[in-house]
């Protein structure tokens, strides 16, 4: 964690935030999460994987689109509410214009088999991008206060509940989340300091 933190950088301006989030949003076909992780952690080095996961946890539990919540929180960390607005505007504006323009001309091409096939192919890859990002972020669980084995168990339980049993997300977040947080509370107290403070 310390090595990774020391190599962290920060955006030089709100404009850089806006441009970075615009560029990453435009690469995010079928969801922005995979790109956001790669750009924010690996390329720009504004966040560690642990920090990204923390922001995502907050963004996930709160109502609202999780990547938009992450953009807001990242922007806010660096430049206050103006930064939050820059990042959010970056992730939304150009994609919004694009999607409305395409909607206006969509009807003519919707039935074309090559277009439908291309959408299917892109969707299949998009599903893989999310799985690959989850695998990558799993490395952050090694430093989790609950220990790796418990974490893997919780990952599996959440997967079974949401993906296989299709339970409502709220149950998983409030039910399993509460159990998990209480256990983490005990473990965090058992260690002398919480793990994730590398700022």
């Amino acid at each position: 964690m310390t090595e990774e933190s020391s190599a962290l950088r920060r955006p030089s301006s709100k404009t850089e935030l806006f441009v970075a989030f615009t560029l990453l949003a435009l690469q995010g076909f079928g969801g922005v999460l995979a790109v956001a992780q790669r750009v924010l952690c690996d390329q720009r080095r504004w966040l560690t994987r642990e920090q990204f996961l923390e922001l995502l946890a907050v963004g996930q539990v709160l109502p609202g689109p999780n990547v938009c919540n992450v953009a807001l929180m990242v922007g806010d960390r660096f430049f206050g509410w103006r930064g939050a607005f820059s990042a959010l505007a970056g992730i939304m504006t150009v994609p919004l214009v694009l999607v409305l323009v395409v909607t206006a001309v969509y009807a003519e091409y919707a039935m074309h088999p090559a277009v439908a096939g291309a959408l299917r192919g892109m969707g299949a890859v998009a599903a893989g991008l999310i799985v690959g990002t989850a695998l990558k972020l799993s490395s952050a669980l090694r430093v989790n206060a609950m220990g790796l084995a418990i974490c893997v168990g919780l990952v599996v339980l959440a997967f079974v509940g949401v993906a296989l049993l299709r339970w409502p997300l709220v149950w998983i977040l409030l039910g399993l989340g509460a159990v998990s947080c209480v256990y983490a509370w005990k473990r965090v107290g058992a260690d002398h300091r919480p793990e994730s403070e590398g700022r």
Partner: protein
Amino acid sequence: MQAPVDFLSLFLHFLLLSLLSIGGAIAVAPDMHRVMVHEMGVLTDAQFNSSIALAQALPGPNVLFVAVMGYQAAGLKGAAVTLAGIMLPSTTLALAASRWGHARQDWRAVGAFKAGMAPLVIGLMFSTGWILATEVPGWRHIVPTVAAAVLVWRTRLHLLVMIAVGGILGALGWV
């Protein structure tokens, strides 16, 4: 055909849905369907489905499907009303909660929350990938899905390259 749009009640309804949208706006899509298609009658079933499909196929946050619905129901004004409604409450709340948590990051409860939720978030990401990959009938599309997962995990290959290859394979009818 389509009914005239009551912008105020549309806006108020999306404000409410924003506060309920844990897991993203797609989680409250069934209620948008109930209100816009059945109650208000400003959107057809086909328009509703195409709104979600379009936003997923194009780059950007998936929440933009809300703007597409507003646009299909009532043009640019409709898009502004639905998007502002779905974003304002959740945005305000996220900002407030993030500041609250960041100011108290040394607190044991905040540390416990972060540690406790991390594996769940990863489990949810696996679930999203699973649901996206299995809702399409057939098996051939699993190949690009698995390949993309491994490439993202293990290599630095550009994500757009993977998306483009998937699109080309699909257009050729191989997926």
